[in-house]
């Protein structure tokens, strides 16, 4: 099943790595370098899943997720962060899952299958 996925992360290499990898599985992937540009992309396109980093310039992952959920409360957000201390907050806020960096790329596909 092909999904429309938005990846928001402040590390360009992670964005391109995830994008290239997920596109192999047939997903349509867009990337955003921070919360603000991610939010703008989200307003213009309907995504099946958002993969969200936490530590970013401006809006952090939690704030950006709240903004996205305010627009569409049914949006599925998968957190991907190296900061385990935000896991609880992310899940309470409405994230469908939390991937602790560094994780195997296979985990991201398994999470997508599990949650979407």
């Amino acid at each position, binding site marked *: 099943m092909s999904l429309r996925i938005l990846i928001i992360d402040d590390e360009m290499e992670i964005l391109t790595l995830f994008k290239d990898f997920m596109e192999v599985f047939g997903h349509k992937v867009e990337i955003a370098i921070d919360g603000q540009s991610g939010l703008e992309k989200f307003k213009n396109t309907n995504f099946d899943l958002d993969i969200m980093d936490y*530590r970013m310039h401006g809006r952090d992952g939690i704030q950006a997720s709240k903004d996205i959920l305010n627009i569409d409360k049914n949006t599925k957000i998968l957190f991907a962060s*190296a900061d385990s201390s935000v896991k609880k907050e992310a899940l309470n806020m409405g994230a469908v899952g939390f991937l602790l960096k560094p994780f195997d790329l296979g985990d991201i596909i398994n999470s997508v299958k599990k949650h979407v």
Partner: protein
Amino acid sequence: MQVTGGETGAVLTEDSQGETIISGFAPVPGTDWGVITYERWENIFGSIRGYSNLLLGLLVLGSIISSALIFFVISRILRPIHDLTMGAQRIAGGDFDPMIVPQSGDEMQTLAQQFNTMADTLKEHTASLKKEIAERKRLEDQREKARKEAEFYADVLAHDVGNINQITMGYLYLLQTAKDEKTRKKNVDGIKKSIMNSKRLAESIKILKIIKDTKIEKFDLNKSIERSIEEIKAYSNKEIEVNLDMDKKYYVKANDFLDRVFFNILENSAEFIFKEKVIIDIKTEEKDGFCNVHIHDNGIGISKEKKKDILENLETLSKRTGMGFYLTKKILERFNGKFEIEDVKKGTEIVVSIPVINGGSVRNVHAQRSHKRNERRG
């Protein structure tokens, strides 16, 4: 009438001119006559009243002199006590200068000397206390600074190391699943780059720790820029074209870490350009004793919000986004330089300013080169 009536006596009356007189009268025995005498009252009591006034004056004068004498004597007695009281008040107010000791040879002199001894002791104690407080404050400030520094490094490392590890893990997974040699090589290169990034991160932390104490000397800015260009081309997996326009040779007060400044900026340009080809224009100019190096790229640009954070709130920003700009700023501060982000319509323009060494530049040397390489990492 009284005289003729045989009476004897005296009366106080007035004469025909209105003057007060005292008149005495008595009958002359055996006749109908009487004798009346008088004298002016003023003649009798005038001198007495004069003496009275003189005595009264002397009495008043005596009283005044006595009072002044008493006041003077009492003042002399009370002065040391007053001085001691004032001295005690000064000490209470924190002024420990010695008071003047009366050379009276009595208890007052001893007491004043004791006060001075006490003031000296208090002065020493207070000075020692102040020194101790200042030392504690310095240590507290140092601890707070170290705590913030540790927090900063922890946050930055959590961010940067997390990303490096994630990238490495990603390439490892792709390497494991690679089906052809080209893909395998690409992923091995990615892992190598991650390892280099890790090394660079460790170097960045080391530079941050030592940069304040590094020696600065006459340094060739042009060569520093050229080395950084070569390094970024070798490092990045994108095609990088650099148009270099250096108006003359510049010598600045810096050291080898200047290369890191230019590399960081170039790396930032290369990273945030989504296009396959990165075009960077570098231009130098001298202004107000500074060499301004303009570095312009064809990237996505920096939002006003991020620009504000980079310039005004860099430490907090670095905790979220890594230490690239923070390190750049700290190195430039060591060289009394700075960087600014120019407002440009397209891309990003960063201007690095470093003081030029007087007479260190050779004018009219115009270098315009175009570096076009299409290097892949590895």
